């Protein structure tokens, strides 16, 4: 407790989160531009401050003072409220996200469920932006975002459920949706060892949730030119941008809590906040750097390929993971059986994906596409 009054305490903690998030967005924007510069053989921002470190600040000032344009034909309230509908759910998710054993706003018993539930709401904002802008690109992008959500959200949730099933605390036994308890159970072995398949599914579906390559289909620059954001400018556009980066932090923190043992592994729960915060910071940074790296090295999938992958590969394997978990838990088999079976399944899933891609490379032209001669 920071303050005596529970309300006051909650407000202070929420205020801290609300301040920390925009700051982290500024840092992440700079980081992403620098890393992309490095990957692309250029320098990145160099002008504002030494090595351009103040670039994020300059961008923020520019975006805040820029004119907030609204197309004349746009649906006013849908258009203007859409950025809030995207940003607020992402911030809400941070209410229950623990950074260490006692660094959070409120640790909810159903924390994991709450995070998954609210982060799914932001799609409403994307569809609102797509519809309200009165722009065909935005409309296509909004529709793509909706199609993408229903594809990745189910495997994502199932992968998280697999972890929740095997979470273990001495008091409550197996199964927990409380994030602190989930991390407590990973003192000796992080769950990535027991659940590699769920980890990979979470990672891929997380990429899709962030609209990053290869799943940046709704915002595809060369196709729909930014998709739902196309008509936005200034502060409203930066709200979308902020939501994107904050959800990147969210997915990264969540991944390190669920699969890498959060603040617990390998230092243990009693390591003290001075060691735990850097530990979770390192783990989170690992995922953030991974996402940035992938963004600048992978091309974009087509929407039908993304849906096919999510429904035909991720979903069945996520279900399989849950079935195996249930099996092991019901019969009380030792934990290593989980790791072995999940690892084997990961290899199978990887091989199937690889083979499908290779077959696509070697297959002759599909009959559906062999229509060229008949058109003209």
């Amino acid at each position, binding site marked *: 407790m920071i303050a005596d009054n529970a309300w006051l305490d909650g407000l202070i903690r929420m205020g801290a989160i609300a301040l920390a998030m925009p700051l982290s967005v500024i840092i992440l924007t700079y980081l992403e531009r620098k890393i992309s510069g490095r990957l692309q*053989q250029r320098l990145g921002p160099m002008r504002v401050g030494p090595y351009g470190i103040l670039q994020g600040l300059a961008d923020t000032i520019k975006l805040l003072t820029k004119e907030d344009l609204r197309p004349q034909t746009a649906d006013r309230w849908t258009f203007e409220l859409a950025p809030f509908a995207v940003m607020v759910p992402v911030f809400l998710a941070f209410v229950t996200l623990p950074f260490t054993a006692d660094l959070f706003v409120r640790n909810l018993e159903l924390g994991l469920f709450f995070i998954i539930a609210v982060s799914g709401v932001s799609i409403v904002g994307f569809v609102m932006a797509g519809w309200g802008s009165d722009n065909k690109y935005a409309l296509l992008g909004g529709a793509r975002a909706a199609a993408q959500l229903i594809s990745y959200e189910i495997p994502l949730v199932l992968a998280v459920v697999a972890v929740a099933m095997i979470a273990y605390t001495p008091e409550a036994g197996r199964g927990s949706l409380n994030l602190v308890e989930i991390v407590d159970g990973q003192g000796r072995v992080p769950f990535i060892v027991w659940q590699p398949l769920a980890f990979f599914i979470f990672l891929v579906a997380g990429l899709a949730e962030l609209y990053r390559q290869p799943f940046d289909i709704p915002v595809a620059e*060369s196709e729909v030119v930014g998709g739902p954001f196309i008509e936005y400018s200034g502060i409203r556009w930066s709200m979308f941008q902020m939501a994107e980066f904050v959800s990147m932090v969210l997915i990264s923190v969540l991944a390190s809590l669920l699969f890498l043992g959060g603040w617990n592994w390998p230092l243990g729960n009693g390591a003290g906040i001075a060691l735990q915060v850097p530990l979770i910071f390192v783990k989170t940074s690992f995922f953030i750097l991974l996402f940035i790296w992938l963004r600048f*090295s992978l*091309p974009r999938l087509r929407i039908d390929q993304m849906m096919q992958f999510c429904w035909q590969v991720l979903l069945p394997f996520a279900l399989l993971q849950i079935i195996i978990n249930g099996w092991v838990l019901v019969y009380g088999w030792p934990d290593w059986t989980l790791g072995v079976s999940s690892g084997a399944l990961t290899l199978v899933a990887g091989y199937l994906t690889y083979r499908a891609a290779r077959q696509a*490379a070697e297959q002759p032209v599909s009959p*559906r596409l062999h229509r060229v001669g008949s058109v*003209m």
Partner: protein
Amino acid sequence: MATEYSVTPGKDLETIDINVNVGPQHPATHGVFRMVLTVDGEQVVDVDPIIGYMHRGAEKLSENCDYRQAIGYQDRTDYLAQFNTELCYVQAVEKLAGIEPPERAEYIRVILAELNRIASHYMFMGAFGTDIGVFGTAFMYTFRDREIIQDLFEEITGERMMYAYFRAGGVAWDVPEDFRERCREVLSAVRKGIGDIDGLMTDNEVIIARCRGVSPVTPEDAINWGLTGPMLRATGLEHDVRRAEPYCIYDRFEFDIPTGIQGDVYDRYLVRLEEMRQSVRIVEQALEGMPEGPIMAEGLKRTLRLPEGEVYMRNETPRGEYGIYLISKGGDKPYRLKIRSPAFSNLSALRAMSIGSYVADTIVTLGSIDIVLCEVDR
């Protein structure tokens, strides 16, 4: 909303196709091309390509210039392969005037034209990578290497874009003394650069998934549409003007003509990648064989006057078969100059190639044609 949709009670909801206007300002249109897509959700029902935004009347303007001045307009048609288009024009003039350029000039021309082909294909690789979603990475890598070639051109011609270096009868001035060494440096950088692009893109599963089987063209269709260049060779036809009707001194060099099998986007990419390697081979051989000597045919008057007659000259530019049809009624100006633009013919197949595919496929197909709008509109 500008469009109000109303639902009549008792009647089922209907879906309608929407028109999406891609261009003239759109990241994927490579200039000022415009296509009106009629889409049913994500599927393309119809494509209406609209060109002409860059029309400058280069053919008509050339009629008002003498034969030397019109070289400048050739730079401005295909602004990514200026040496190739210049070469075609000066050769047409030479053919009609009966001028034999000296050996050294021919070698310089071949070296520069092939280096320019590499530079143009670099541009394709970068733009194609951006179309397909590699967020600028392919683009920056190819531009790094294209810049090296540009630097060489700048050293020789003093210009980065509008070279106007070839002349009817030779080249404007001799190349610098360290030309051979500089070319070898450029070639080694290019060889490494091709390897980089190969490693980044060729075997990428996502690229294969996006390109394989997209907008395939049969050899018969390709001939019917008049496709040329990599678009034609990707279908499996081994047709290259450099081999089929050797111009300049191309019959002296050994090189392979890469062909595809399925004629789809991926094959076009592979053909272009291999063509870059073959161009490196040609430049190497030309550097070996380049003699010393004059760079301009002797006995030419300051103002060139052509005899009455007409001539058609075709060259293989990076985009395909570039043709110059020149009619002279005597005098120092062409009576009529007609340019056969390969990108124009290749672009005409866009509609048929795109109908029935996805919006994303249409963008990739357009990218794989490798259009230069200045050349299409002339």
